[in-house]
């Protein structure tokens, strides 16, 4: 299937915009990675989320994570402020002005679910010197392996979504991040957060199916009644009927930073929800690896430089040795 002219122009424009945003010509860049063949993911629809935090409770239970008691001290309930060493998944809220109306930018509020987006071309995997971050070649789930991690925290520093977190208060601390309940998926179960979501705001499925679902929602007319699937797209679960909100016509994660397997729909701008906007269509690893592999491809350049150095230094030190030999005799 060939591209028609219109699609081609769109692609070119998107590419140019991406390059302009990156602010460089991206001369040394490796090709971006492709979506894995059986990629699974999540569609989070901010407009459906009611902020009940059932997903947070289920996440802690499924992953055996400790509660986080904060301000005021001695609270009796789990009260994380953000994802960190104790919390892999969190519902946060955007508030503006009087915060009266849900999913409105001014004087409104909106929920957002934050955790690993399972990038198609993840920076954390590229930067890790010891392959402690891996991406499943089939499902695309990004996992962390603390048994080989050296704790350099380059993944924490480099992740464009600031997802991996380190346990700074533990002398034997480790990196913590959402692994999409890979242990549950291995048993054919649904990731805990998607499993318990009462409204279908957090939906599990194949990335391709989720994108279809998202496009249907974006195409529907605001105000129309729509049947929202719940939990797991591959299962026949009870649905949730509601009206279509005024979505922003954008599926976040479709292209951003090379694409992510966790996708977002929202009625308020994504940067208000804490998701980086104005990002290129490629992951930054394409640039760092582009530079690294141009300089070090098969170690040809270093070998050539070394050969030259050996020749020059040998010649220059021989003269030197004769010199000092004469001095010493």
């Amino acid at each position, binding site marked *: 299937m060939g591209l028609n002219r219109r699609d081609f122009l769109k692609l070119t424009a998107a590419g140019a915009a991406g390059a302009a945003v990156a602010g460089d010509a991206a001369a040394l860049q490796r090709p971006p990675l492709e979506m894995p063949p059986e990629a699974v993911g999540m569609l989070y629809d901010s407009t459906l989320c009611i902020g009940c935090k059932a997903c947070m409770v289920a996440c802690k239970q499924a992953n055996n994570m400790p509660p986080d008691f904060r301000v005021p001290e001695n609270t009796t309930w789990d009260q994380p402020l953000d994802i960190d060493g104790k919390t892999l998944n969190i519902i946060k809220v955007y508030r503006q002005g009087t915060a009266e109306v849900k999913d409105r930018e001014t004087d409104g509020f909106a929920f957002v679910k934050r955790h690993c987006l399972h990038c198609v071309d993840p*920076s954390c995997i590229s930067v890790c010197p*010891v392959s402690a971050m891996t991406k499943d070649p089939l499902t695309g789930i990004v996992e962390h392996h603390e048994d080989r*991690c050296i704790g350099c925290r380059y993944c924490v520093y480099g992740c464009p979504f600031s997802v991996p977190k*380190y346990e700074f208060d533990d002398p034997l601390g480790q990196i913590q991040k959402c692994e999409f309940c890979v242990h549950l998926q291995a048993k054919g179960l649904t990731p805990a957060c998607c499993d318990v979501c009462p409204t279908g705001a957090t939906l599990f499925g194949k990335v391709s199916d989720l994108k279809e679902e998202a496009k249907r929602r974006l195409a529907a007319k605001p105000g129309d009644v729509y049947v929202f699937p719940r939990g797991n797209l591959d299962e026949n679960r009870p649905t949730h009927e509601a009206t279509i909100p005024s979505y922003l016509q954008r599926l976040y994660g479709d292209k951003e930073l090379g694409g992510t397997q966790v996708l977002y729909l929202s009625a308020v701008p994504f940067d208000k929800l804490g998701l980086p906007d104005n990002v290129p269509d490629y992951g930054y690893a394409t640039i760092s690896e582009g530079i690294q592999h141009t300089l070090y491809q098969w170690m040809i350049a270093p070998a050539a430089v070394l050969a030259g150095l050996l020749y020059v230094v040998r010649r*220059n030190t021989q003269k030197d040795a004769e010199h000092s030999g004469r001095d010493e005799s």
Partner: protein
Amino acid sequence: MSEHVPVGGRLITKPFTILILLAMLAFAILVARFLFGLGSVTAMSDGYPWGIWIVIDVMIGTAFGCAGYSVALLVYVMNKGEYHPLVRPAVMAGLFGYTLGGIAVMIDLGRYWQFWTLLWPGYVNLNSVMLEVAWCVMAYIVVLWIEFTPAFLERLGMKNLKQKLSKLLFLFIAVGVLLPTMHQSSLGTLATAVGFKISPLWQTQMVPLLFLLSAVVMGYAIVPFESILSALGLKRPFETKLLGKLSAAMLVVLIAYLVVRVIDLTWRGAWGYAFELNTQAIMFWVEMALFVAPVLMLMSPKNIYNPRLQFLSGFSLLLAGSVYRINTYIIGYDAGPGWSYFPSAGEIMVTVGVFSFEVILYLFFVKKLPVLHRAEAH
């Protein structure tokens, strides 16, 4: 007889005692770090997971350690034999800068006991710039110790062994020029994977070249800085003429750095960020001023042989390269709303202790080992 001699003199002086106390304080703080975790001692957080232990102790420490590299470039690659008296002290500066940088890494690593995985074939990730840095720095530390071995052998009177080593030394000198070229540039490449989190004032594909050039400049800059301080402190004659020539070489690399920096900022259209009213813009101008001032100081042939200006320009460039690295990785880094970082007292005292330990080693080595050139040779 060798051309290098130990300076001799009393080792335990008042400044030396203060340095020992500072190093011991750092050691005590580190006990807490290993017992209670990085968060108990440092101001690092999930927003700012890299603090001064990485950026100052490792990135700036090793750039100071480029003395051995920069001088070797002059003596062995450009074949300027007259700089030979500077080689051994420069190699020693490199030895300490890199060895302590390596120790600082172990202090900073959150899971230091798994350090061996960096060498495990099943685990290594060849896409990782960090891996290149780690291997290359480890190798260079070994090379520096070998390059410095003749000083030990002379002290121990092992002439035969020294003769044998000197035949092979060219191998290590060549590798010792290659390795810093690789990892000092890679220390810059590390930034490119971070993307928009680093301000366009510092985020560029040119960052490997800029880090390399500024490291060479810092390698030269530390020579007059150290030479003049030890001339004053150890009551030795100034090496004014030699340092003047070295400053000229430094000036050439410095101008190359500034040309690349300015063209890159212009090419990317990043100058706008320099005129905003924020810390990043202010620190950008501080950095640029520190780089440009020495150009003005050294431009005339008369000034270049003035020990005061040699010292000042060297000092300014050491600061410039340091601020450039801090700007790239800390000031220019935007962790998002709600995060901030300023090093804690404990964190600062560990860094102070690491550098104190470096000076302790320097004093011990120059007084006890044949490092500095025979004074009357000039």
